[in-house]
């Protein structure tokens, strides 16, 4: 009402605010209490959602505000790189909600879906607590602080910031860390796809169809209708649905089903070949269209899953804690709850890989400095929520089914006594019926997390379609979920191989400048081949491992990802100290200390544990010499030892150079020089 003065009651508003936030905090506490105090009785997924959402809301309202306003003093009067360096391509001032969607699409990958599913072997409680608390004090803090640091440095990358703010050694270490994590990441996600598509003609046919669909989309977007991504993606999505339906026909046709049924090693060879070709081909032909297709599918499926879970609110069948939390001999992943639950769930709680996005495209698109809070912190909260949904999907499965699916026959035999005592049993007949309902030949020993997540999602989706009066279409939902997971895993593989190729070309370009030319084909082929050989070897090793491969590769991936997070937090801490904000350094040092403790403990146990289900050296010693593949298996386990020790060494090295830098600056032996770009008044100030 114009002209009417607005009356203000600051005390009433303050009391109302205290009451509101107190109520949200109390509701969250009630959610946690219900989850934590349940012993045997069925718990509804609603409590898990309530605990998570209340914690996110409180964390965002108070902690992210504190970091944005007190620690970094974000200021909308200061022009962002997007405003100062605007070029209409990568430096583009963008509405904060649009950028939120863009940032979320960039950070969300298979990690927050698969990690929680694997960690469900400890029960639903440990993984959920780590997802929810870890993100508020760790993962979202890392994303926000790195985004703020890069924002004030023209959108510089993590490696560049490490080099400028710490020293050249830290810069090289950061670059090597990215390369290592890339190799292990690609191997482990490729293994997930292999395990999901093994003996699955329906799944393999659908995924194989995505290659010609992507090529068609690429031609559409680049040559026929340049830049028409929406049109091409709609056509691609329609063809994808046809491929999904066609997969059902293929699976039911004896000759076609045989043509699309392959063993693990054969599928591994196909994926290795695909990764190489995708890296060598022009980017528009395969990589970009597949990326758009997977982004649309990812966002829509996550939204559908969230709505479906909210509609159904399914009960959790997995107990809060399983015997494997304390025994450390879990059939899915070896090792006790600490540190392995925190390694198993990396993305969703804290993911070092996000620091590459937060210091990549996102800082170049922020229109206002204070938008960083929503994008950096809020974006990571959403990823954690995706992880919580994956946990719910896995824990709605009967525990017997969950363990039968995620365990190899060898590991199942070892854990059979504990599984039987805990009541986690399932009959072969029940597994046969389940496989039939999902349109698969078998679901036993389908390790890697993707198939069990797909079964959980299929049950949830089918529950909704059943409620809405339609047919349940469980098999179709199962293969839709597999297609959804495999599609963006393959996008990670082709994009990762290509980025790894660029990094290798850049590194070797310092020695031989001709090799650094990213469009020189001999260099493209050699560098692509080297990167593919790197992750391909670990993939093959995982495929032929009698324990399933995930058992040793996933912890290595978790350690590598947390290592990168440690690099990011070291950089952020150094910048805070140099900014004269050492009193706030605990914001980044707390998650850093936790990560170092987790990474080093997990690395040590993975290498030196005398338990042959966990320790790599013990595993190598336990290999039967009469086994014809004994020499190869021993070599593989020892190679994993070298990789784990390398990761640990990198952590120690980086921590040492960072602590030295902090000490030099704090003791005034070295001037605190920050490399921020100077203040320029924003044209948006006051808008």
């Amino acid at each position, binding site marked *: 009402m114009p002209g009417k003065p607005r009356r203000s009651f600051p005390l009433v508003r303050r009391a109302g605010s205290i009451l509101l936030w107190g109520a949200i905090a109390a509701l969250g506490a009630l959610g946690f209490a219900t989850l934590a105090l349940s012993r045997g009785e069925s718990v509804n997924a609603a409590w898990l959602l309530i605990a998570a959402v209340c914690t996110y809301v409180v964390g965002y309202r108070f902690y992210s505000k504190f970091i944005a306003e007190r620690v970094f003093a974000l200021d909308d009067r200061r022009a962002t790189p997007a405003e100062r360096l605007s070029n*209409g391509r*990568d430096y583009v001032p963008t509405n904060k909600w649009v950028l939120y969607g863009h940032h979320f699409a960039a950070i969300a990958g298979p990690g927050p879906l698969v990690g929680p599913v694997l960690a469900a072997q400890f029960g639903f409680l440990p993984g959920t607590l780590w997802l929810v608390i870890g993100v508020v004090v760790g993962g979202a803090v890392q994303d926000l602080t790195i985004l703020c640091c890069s924002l004030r440095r023209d959108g510089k990358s993590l490696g560049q910031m490490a080099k400028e703010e710490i020293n050249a050694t830290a810069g090289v270490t950061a670059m090597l860390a990215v390369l290592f994590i890339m190799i292990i990441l690609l191997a482990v996600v490729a293994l997930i796809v292999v395990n999901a598509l093994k003996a699955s003609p329906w799944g393999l046919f659908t995924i194989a169809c995505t290659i010609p669909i992507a090529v068609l989309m690429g031609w559409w977007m*680049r040559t026929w209708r340049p830049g028409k*991504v929406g049109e091409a993606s709609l056509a691609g999505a329609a063809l994808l649905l046809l491929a999904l339906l066609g997969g059902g026909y293929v699976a039911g046709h004896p000759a076609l089903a045989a043509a699309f049924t392959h063993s693990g090693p054969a599928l591994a060879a196909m994926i290795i070949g695909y990764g190489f070709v995708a890296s060598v081909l022009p*980017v528009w032909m395969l990589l970009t269209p597949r990326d758009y297709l997977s982004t649309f599918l990812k966002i829509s499926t996550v939204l559908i899953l969230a709505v479906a879970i909210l509609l159904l609110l399914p009960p959790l069948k997995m107990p809060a804690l399983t015997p494997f939390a304390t025994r450390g001999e879990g059939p899915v992943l070896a090792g006790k709850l600490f540190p392995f639950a925190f390694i198993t769930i990396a993305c969703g709680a804290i993911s070092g890989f996000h620091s590459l996005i937060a210091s990549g495209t996102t800082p170049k698109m922020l229109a206002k400095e204070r938008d960083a809070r929503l994008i950096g912190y809020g974006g990571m909260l959403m990823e954690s929520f995706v992880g919580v949904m994956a946990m719910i999907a896995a824990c709605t499965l009967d525990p017997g089914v969950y363990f039968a699916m995620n365990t190899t026959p060898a590991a199942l035999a070892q854990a059979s006594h504990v599984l039987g005592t805990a009541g986690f049993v399932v009959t072969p007949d029940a597994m046969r019926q389940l496989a039939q309902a999902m349109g698969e030949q078998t679901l036993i020993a389908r390790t890697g997390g993707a198939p069990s997540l797909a079964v959980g999602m299929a049950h949830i989706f089918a529950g909704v379609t059943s409620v809405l009066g339609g047919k349940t279409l469980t098999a179709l939902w199962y293969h839709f979920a597999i297609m959804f997971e495999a599609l963006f895993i393959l996008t990670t593989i082709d994009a990762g191989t290509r980025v790894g190729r660029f990094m290798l070309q850049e590194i070797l370009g310092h020695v031989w400048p001709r090799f650094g030319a990213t469009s020189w084909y001999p260099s493209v082929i050699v560098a692509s081949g080297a990167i593919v050989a790197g992750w391909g070897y670990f993939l093959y090793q995982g495929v032929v491992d009698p324990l399933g491969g995930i058992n040793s590769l996933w912890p290595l991936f978790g350690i590598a990802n947390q290592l990168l997070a440690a690099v990011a937090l070291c950089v952020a801490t150094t910048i805070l100290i140099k900014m004269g904000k050492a009193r706030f350094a605990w914001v980044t040092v707390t998650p850093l200390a936790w990560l170092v403790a987790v990474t080093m403990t997990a690395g040590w146990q993975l290498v030196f544990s005398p338990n042959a289900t966990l320790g790599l050296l013990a595993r190598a010693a336990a290999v039967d010499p009469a086994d014809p593949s004994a020499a190869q298996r021993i070599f593989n386990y020892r190679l994993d030892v070298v990789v784990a020790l390398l990761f640990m060494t990198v952590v120690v090295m980086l921590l040492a150079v960072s602590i030295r830098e902090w000490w030099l600056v704090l003791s005034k032996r070295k001037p605190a020089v920050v490399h921020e770009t100077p203040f320029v008044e924003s044209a948006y100030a006051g808008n």
Partner: protein
Amino acid sequence: MQETEGRRPVGRSGGRLARLGRILRRIVGAPDYAAYLEHCHAAGHEPRLMEQEYVREFFEHKGKAPRCC
């Protein structure tokens, strides 16, 4: 009020659709030639790239960014 979507002027209803399209394009990281033209106009210089060249450069640049795990 009219906006320009590429080289094609669009009216009020088309403007809303075009705006939605631009939001979606930005979210999925798709090329936006109209934004490039607007940038050139605001910066006071002629566009350096034709639409097809812009799209090619955009895709090349996009292919150098990692996808998260």
